[in-house]
């Protein structure tokens, strides 16, 4: 009851900022005649209630609220959510409704050509292929959605790989410090100065796998293992500033081991910047993947990614522009949204980095 009343109160106060705050407004007449003891009791109840609300707002909740206030971030979140859902469920749904799988190549010779969007084989309007078909008559929408699966998978898994390497590497370097830190960070510097795209290409061609799936896994590892450098630096910096705080000393004074201090006490404290940077790494990795696919090193057929679809589309850009436009636009939109989301997260989780 009381809680209900409180929420109503706050809402009215917030909703009508021009009028006086309602708590002083309503009991105004009584207040003068209220005996002091009662007034004090009331005040106590009110503090108890505010305590209740204060308790409910944790760090993550605050961050979440801050994120929801950011319109671009919300837009990004929605788009990323929709694209992810569509990629996961899309190919399946299309198969159920039209019977077309992403790699379905029509057997009829007249269908073995690229149709523009919303066109059927006789040139009339049709819902069958909203994005048209590709050279072999495969449904482009199904291809784009399936490509989305691969692209997002590459982005997320490679980022996770880089996360695991970068966070542990940076945290260990930062916490141990001294000579170890020096050597570890010089290694990072050296790796930084190497052209990473060439490393990836070398890795991919050196361990070239026979199957498309093997090649995909190799791609995760190769991309992940070159994109952890900045993550390592960020985490090291965070750990350097955290490790001199008293709670680390307190943990050591209670006999907690070094490994446990790093992984249980320090790393959770670096999560804010790590999440932000990871979100911003996903689009970078996806872009690199597209670039690699463009060069022919990335995802191998029969699998497709947005990058490889765009590559296919570019060959026919003058005649069948939709083959490039649809995968390209989908990818651009997703990358855009991820970047917005990352920026929003940075504002929400990492107040020091906020620049106004």
């Amino acid at each position, binding site marked *: 009851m009381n809680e209900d009343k409180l929420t109503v109160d706050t809402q009215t106060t917030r909703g009508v900022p021009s009028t006086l705050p309602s708590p002083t407004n309503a009991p105004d007449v009584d207040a003068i005649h209220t005996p002091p003891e009662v007034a004090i009791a009331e005040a106590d109840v009110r503090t108890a209630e505010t305590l209740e609300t204060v308790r409910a707002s944790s760090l993550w909740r605050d961050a979440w609220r801050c994120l929801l206030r950011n319109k671009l971030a919300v837009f990004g979140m929605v788009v990323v959510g929709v694209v992810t859902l569509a990629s996961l469920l899309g190919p399946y749904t299309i198969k159920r409704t039209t019977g077309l799988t992403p790699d379905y190549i029509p057997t009829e010779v007249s269908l073995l050509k690229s149709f523009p969007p919303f066109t059927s084989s006789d040139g009339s309007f049709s819902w069958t292929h909203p994005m048209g078909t590709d050279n072999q008559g495969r449904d482009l929408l199904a291809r784009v959605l399936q490509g989305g699966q691969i692209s997002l998978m590459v982005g997320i898994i490679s980022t996770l790989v880089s996360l695991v390497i970068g966070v542990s590497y940076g945290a260990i370097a930062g916490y141990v410090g001294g000579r170890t830190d020096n050597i570890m960070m010089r290694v990072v510097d050296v790796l930084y100065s190497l052209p990473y795209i060439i490393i990836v290409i070398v890795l991919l061609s050196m361990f070239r796998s026979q199957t498309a799936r093997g090649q995909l896994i190799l791609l995760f590892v190769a991309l992940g293992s070159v994109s952890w450098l900045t993550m390592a630096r960020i985490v090291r910096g965070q750990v350097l500033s955290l490790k001199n705080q008293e709670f680390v000393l*307190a943990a050591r004074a209670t006999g907690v081991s070094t490994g446990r201090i790093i992984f249980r006490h320090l790393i959770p404290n670096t*999560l804010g910047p790590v999440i932000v940077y990871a979100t911003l790494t996903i689009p970078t990795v996806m872009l690199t993947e597209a670039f690699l696919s463009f060069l022919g090193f990335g995802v191998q057929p029969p699998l497709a990614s947005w990058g490889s679809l765009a590559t296919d589309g570019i060959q026919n850009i003058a005649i069948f522009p939709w083959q490039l436009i649809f995968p390209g636009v989908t990818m651009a939109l997703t990358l855009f949204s991820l970047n917005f989301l990352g920026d929003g997260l940075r504002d929400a989780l990492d107040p020091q980095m906020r620049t106004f």
Partner: protein
Amino acid sequence: MGCGMPSTHKCERSNDKVEARNGTLLEVHDLRTYFETEDGVVKAVDGINFQLKRGETLGIVGESGSGKSVTNLSLIRLIPDPPGKIVSGEVLFAGQDLLLLSAEEIRKVRGRRIAMIFQDPMTSLNPFMKISRQLMEMTQLHLGHTKQQAYEHAIKMLETVGIPEPRRRAGDYPDEFSGGMRQRVMIAMALSCRPELLIADEPTTALDVTIQAQILELIKKLKHETGTSVILITHDLGVVAGMTDHLIVMYAGKVFEQAPTRELFAKPGNPYTKGLLRSVPDPTDEHGQLYQIPGLPPDVAHLPSGCPFAPRCDYEQEICHSEFPPFVQLNSEHYSLCHFAQEVYFESASAATGVKES
């Protein structure tokens, strides 16, 4: 000694107690901790000796930078190395030299047998861990508790230190607690393995005066219940007076005076202690100004050859600048580092009796 199994834990401890009841728990001999800095070697702790009996409370007082905290961090070897280094000395804890233990062994002593409470409760709890988890970590680590046992123990400890509704509050994060409450949680953590020695490093400095009294009362009460020995570091003589059995006064990394608390307050045998006692504000003295010891604490990297306190001392003579003062025994338990220890002691002794007569 370090009992791993929770079942054997109780009986072993009581055996321990019987064996060493009234015995000495901690003996520190000639402890020296130096820091290498750009300005030269800082002798933060320079040849400290003291003893602590089981169940006793020892107070260590001194100005900022006198080496109080470094002494205690040295005891459980938490000096940041580099730049710090324990150069020499012995820390005999229940007969075992802590300075000779391996890193693994000393870790089992920390938290389990010697626990610490730090100055600032606002920063000494991990902001990203629930209170319950921080408490549980202690007993899971040292007493081999299962999750369930550790949780129940954590709740019990929170109740012991007077946190209302411990079951509800245990799931909270430190930022949802006030300073006093956090210090209570720190105390709960420190005492959750029933350590033999509790080191409280200025446990009340960061708190309100009203909360200070509560926290001190709590430490006192729990000390009584658990029989833990306590080392209380502070620069507040008011805190020390009601809490401790023995006192050590530190200055420039050295013990300047050492005595039972009552004796030291009544008959200080060292000019520095006298100065400290005089600087406690006296509410009955209406027109009086606050007294302060003239000058500043010395630069520990460049100590003079004589007495480090000489430039600020009322009793200063030629000899103070040329020769390092002796550690004079004034009576069975009272020592003072001063060339004129006897004079100062008799002077304050006669002043004390004078006050009594008038």
